[in-house]
């Protein structure tokens, strides 16, 4: 395995945390914190047991990660082995990514097409509506759980395993699943609502975030690498909702960051051969604040800049900041403009792990990776990677002119599927 030898050795000089003892202390704190999160393991494993019982009693259907999805095994923080499906995926899109920074999802689809992974890009899908839940408090447990189970039921009908793009959707679906399994009252109320749109409770055996898919496929991606990224210093920001919301169920790997920090995103950076750098405010949120990024941006940009961008650039001089969630990219990328105008100097391009992987595999920086939606300056990153972004940009401009004149835009068509949709209780399947 590529990344087995390349271990994060906290002592190495390029990780420029100054004092030796500070590093040791930080390592100990994190080891303890990793164990601390284990404290919630019992309830989590109890929930998984009860889920199986409910299936036996016929109360719920479990969407198993069976052989057809060619699962790969990963270890989670709770030590439990988790099955990550790799093919026949039902793309659970994220509203922030699609509406705002489409490079995320176009890069991911391009990678899947390159690796010939069949998937479903469904229009019968809603977002997890967490903007009403966490963002504003206008929603409640019933509503968000019903939305969750509606989407899962659609995936089950199409016999494709849901792959969740957004960190928050992944987080709140874990929370909803916990309550729908453990709290009978919520389950019955949600079932009543689902009956009104003649659907039933289908709970996925594993909730999978797209960064975990990139994690298990990192070696196939690394093999198709076209550009040498070994001189690129990469700082990674893990999205809070993926590994802090119901912290037991996210991928950890003892060979990556000593198994103390989540493995996804860092693992693909290591697999591609780039240099992973560490910084002191690793554990901090990106400043998204859910409601703040839209209606109180004073708070979001101050936090993102002073607690994330500035420490990263000062401590590590990294070339790029990579994360795996909508809110983080939006906040970290857009929050640099005003502080720079105030006279601060630090800036760093912010892209997603799927975009970085696609760039390294030689995808078109604009037609596929859609970098033009990102504001922080990514030009010297591409120069350092050896990608001639100027000609790519002219090429994109020409492509835009053709479309204006009526040319049909190029679309990423998913490879053909092998699995047939399921017929459930005589209900006609919406194709």
């Amino acid at each position: 395995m590529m990344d087995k030898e390349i271990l994060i050795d906290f002592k190495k000089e390029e990780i420029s945390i100054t004092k030796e003892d500070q590093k040791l202390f930080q390592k100990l704190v994190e080891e303890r914190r990793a164990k601390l999160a284990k404290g919630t393991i019992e309830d989590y494993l109890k929930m998984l047991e009860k889920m199986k019982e409910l299936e036996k009693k016929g109360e719920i259907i479990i969407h198993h990660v069976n052989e057809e999805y060619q699962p790969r095994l990963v270890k989670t923080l709770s030590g439990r082995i988790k099955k990550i499906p790799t093919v026949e995926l039902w793309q659970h899109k994220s509203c922030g990514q699609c509406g705002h920074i489409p490079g995320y999802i176009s890069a991911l689809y391009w990678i899947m097409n390159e690796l010939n992974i069949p998937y479903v890009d469904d229009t019968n899908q809603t977002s997890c509506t967490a903007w009403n839940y966490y963002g504003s408090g206008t929603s409640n447990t019933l509503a968000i759980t019903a939305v969750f189970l509606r989407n899962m039921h659609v995936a089950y009908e199409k016999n494709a395993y849901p792959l969740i793009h957004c960190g928050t959707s992944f987080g709140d679906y874990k929370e909803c699943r916990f309550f729908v399994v453990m709290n009978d009252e919520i389950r019955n109320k949600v079932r009543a609502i689902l009956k009104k749109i003649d659907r039933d409770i289908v709970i996925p055996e594993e909730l999978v975030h797209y960064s975990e898919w990139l994690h298990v496929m990192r070696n196939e991606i690394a093999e198709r690498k076209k550009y040498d990224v070994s001189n690129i210093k990469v700082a990674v920001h893990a999205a809070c909702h993926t590994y802090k919301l119901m912290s037991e169920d996210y991928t950890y790997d003892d060979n990556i960051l000593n198994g103390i920090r989540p493995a996804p995103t860092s693992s693909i950076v290591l697999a591609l051969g780039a240099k992973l750098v560490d910084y002191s405010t690793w554990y901090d949120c990106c400043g998204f604040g859910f409601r703040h990024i839209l209606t109180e941006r004073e708070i979001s940009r101050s936090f993102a800049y002073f607690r994330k961008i500035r420490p990263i650039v000062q401590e590590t001089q990294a070339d790029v900041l990579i994360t795996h969630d909508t809110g983080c990219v939006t906040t970290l990328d857009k929050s640099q403009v005003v502080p720079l105008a105030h006279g601060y100097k630090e800036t760093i391009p912010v892209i997603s792990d799927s975009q970085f992987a696609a760039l390294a595999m030689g995808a078109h920086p604009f037609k596929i990776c859609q970098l033009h939606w990102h504001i922080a300056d990514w030009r010297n990153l591409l120069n350092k990677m050896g990608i001639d972004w100027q000609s790519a940009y002219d090429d994109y401009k020409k492509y835009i002119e053709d479309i204006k004149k009526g040319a049909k835009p190029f679309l990423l068509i998913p490879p053909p599927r092998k699995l047939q949709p399921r017929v459930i209780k005589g209900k006609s399947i919406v194709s």
Partner: protein
Amino acid sequence: MTENKEEKKERKGQYIIEREYIEDERIIEPEKLDLGGVDASGRWGLIILPRVITDFDHSLVEEVKKLPRGKHIENCWQCGLCTAVCPIAHKEPRFNPRYFIYIVKMGYKSEINKLKGLFIFAKAVVYVLKHVLSMLTQLVL
């Protein structure tokens, strides 16, 4: 913080919902800010400085320890008894003796500056005197 209406309008960062919990001096609201042709003055260019303390400042504590009655400041473990019995604190809670010792020991200069100019001491002393006098009159009559 009861303030009159006009002053509230121009108050810096008034659109922030949790405004009462941010000190004024940490809010930078530019009169004019131009972002390459886009006007981001006022609220659009507002940034807030972090309140993270990077180092403890012992100068204040050393200063107090030199004072004749200040030698015991090191013994305080913030039990709160001084404020519990303080009649002024119970009338004017901004006057909190335990809190004064706390910010001196921690060296929070920003908190101490907040107390300057607040005539809470005078207001509170007036209250206590009024209160004590009224009790005395009741006893005497």
